């Protein structure tokens, strides 16, 4: 159950390998196997549609966590140039945040992304993409620098949530996240955020206040991880599938709610099936958004950002005569 998508995908990959083998054999041998290959190909496509055609929210959670899904560094490595900057200037450098100056289609940007590992060893070093206060302070520092130097901010979000360890609490994780929100709200430059995998709670939002928010089709973004939500509400983390269904955490739900601005579609089978295409499509969308936002004055940009968040959840608010000036 836990890895349903990865498990089911395995059969598909096996079939894919068989077809490739037959194709090779067909070239080198006199017997014609075209019919057999076509039949297998058809079966392959049916199976693919069956597995990936209608993903449930829970399956999307697994898709978002897929070990082969492109990570922040897969996007950053496709930028024209990248000069990584390190450290919070206080305590340490957090490898769960990769950040620095970069060129995107020739435009200078400050890029920052949450980085999970692509194997066990890297996951241990990068703490599974769960950022510590030091990582968030690196983000604050660089957001401030970017704002001062008039360099737009580009973020990539991919985390289960902020690191919940003892040291993180001792180093004031809450304050570190809160000040990221503050810094992003105040920034005098355009901000574009892309949710490329899992966007979990405040730890994700710390890089998520933006003028334009892009989400990959099978990414998820939620108030808490489904496991966390199930534990909080029902004291039972194993009810995560039910929580995933209730939380409305898919890109389509969040687009309908006006919480994100743009969905980038994924190929059938997910972003990891054609990573190069997905990465360049996302970077193209980021670039377009930056171009549009770059035409706005600083004041207009900041006012629009304020109003964007000001509106969320005010839908049932009776606009009351807030208060008289009776004094």
């Amino acid at each position, binding site marked *: 159950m836990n890895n349903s998508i990865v498990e089911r995908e395995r059969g598909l990959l096996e079939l894919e390998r068989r077809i490739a083998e037959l194709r090779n054999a067909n070239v080198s041998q006199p017997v014609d196997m075209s019919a057999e290959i076509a039949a297998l190909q058809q079966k392959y496509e049916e199976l693919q549609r069956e597995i990936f055609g209608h993903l449930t929210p829970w399956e999307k959670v697994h898709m978002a966590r897929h070990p082969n899904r492109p990570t922040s560094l897969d996007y950053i490595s496709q930028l024209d140039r990248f000069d990584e900057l390190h450290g919070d200037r206080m305590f340490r450098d957090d490898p769960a945040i990769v950040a620095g100056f970069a060129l995107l289609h020739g435009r200078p940007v400050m890029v920052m992304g949450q980085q999970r590992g692509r194997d066990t060893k890297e996951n241990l070093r990068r703490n599974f993409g769960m950022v510590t206060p030091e990582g968030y302070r690196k983000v604050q520092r660089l957001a401030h620098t970017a704002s001062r130097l008039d360099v737009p901010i580009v973020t990539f979000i991919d985390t289960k949530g*902020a690191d*919940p*360890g*003892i040291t*993180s*609490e*001792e*180093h*004031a*994780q*809450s*304050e570190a*996240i*809160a*000040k990221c*929100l*503050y810094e992003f*709200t*105040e920034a005098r430059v355009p901000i574009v955020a892309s949710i490329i995998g899992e966007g979990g*709670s*405040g730890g994700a*939002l*710390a890089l*998520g*206040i933006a003028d334009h928010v892009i989400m990959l089709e099978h990414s998820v*973004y*939620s*108030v*808490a991880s489904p496991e*966390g*939500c199930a*534990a*909080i*509400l*029902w004291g039972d983390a194993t009810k995560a599938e*039910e929580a995933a269904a*209730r*939380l*409305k*955490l898919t890109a389509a739900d*969040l687009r309908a*709610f006006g*919480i994100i601005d743009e969905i980038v579609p994924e190929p059938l089978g997910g972003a990891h099936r054609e990573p190069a295409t997905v990465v360049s499509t996302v970077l193209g969308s980021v670039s377009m958004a930056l171009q549009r936002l770059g035409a706005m004055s600083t004041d207009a940009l900041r006012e629009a*950002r*304020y109003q964007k*968040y*000001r509106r*969320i*959840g*005010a*839908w*049932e*608010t*009776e606009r*009351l005569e*807030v*208060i*008289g000036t*009776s004094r």
Partner: protein
Amino acid sequence: MPMPDWLRSRRGKGADTRDAALWSKCPVCGEVLYRRDLAANLFVCTKCEHHFRMHAYDRINMLIDGDFTEIGAAVQAGDPLEWVDKKTYPVKIAGDKEKSGLSEGVVAGIGTMDGFEVALGVMDFHFRGGTMGTVVGERLTMLLEEARRRHLPCIIFTASGGARMEEGMFALMQMAKTTAAVTRLMDDGNLFVTVLTDPTTGGVSASFAFESDVVVAEPKAMIGFAGRRVIEQTIRQKLPDQFQTAEFLLEKGAIDMVVDRHDLKNTLVRLLQYTSQKQVRALQQVQDKL
């Protein structure tokens, strides 16, 4: 200024007569306390000084001199996710209203403290664990915007289990919304103080609670980002008792002061005094323009 009924009923008589229980047992030392004595002692155990979680109305009654003009009291929760588990979300909310006597997780408004006009927001753990959904976010944002408009200092008392799950991403986005209002208030040079009471965690601690000029906490209040259980499950060991208490955070440099409830109002008034000249000047500038 109009005085809400709940405030009038608390004035002069001490404890709220609506309160069913006449006696309360201290959860720390077990002492059985007469409710009226407890109220007279600001809901601090007379034996062990444990600070009980206070009702928002009692808190405002304790802090505000005279009248209190509520802001956003009419803002009511929607059900954006059409949430259902054992109960529907609207049914849960109705139960919380009944149980707490509150219309939502925060009471906000304008009043005076020792003559200083302030914008005051008080969260209440008795309503859905003080969780922040759209109503809490909206009321606090209205409060912060009104404080900015009137050049008033703002004080917010927090008590919260974090973001409200049943409102999903709408709840998470209240962190962004309140932060936006906080930045504008502070940019204009207004004093912003937060008082962290038991417990303050998750989306509330990771937004406006820690964005203020001065962070005050009540003794022994549990304050942190991740809940204790989450940390224990992650690291697979028991945490020390002192972990995530106000005193622990003070030692680690995360908060400015831990203040006993009996000294709280005086402490806040002293903080208001440091910045009052600035307020007077700002008000004068506005009046000069008119």
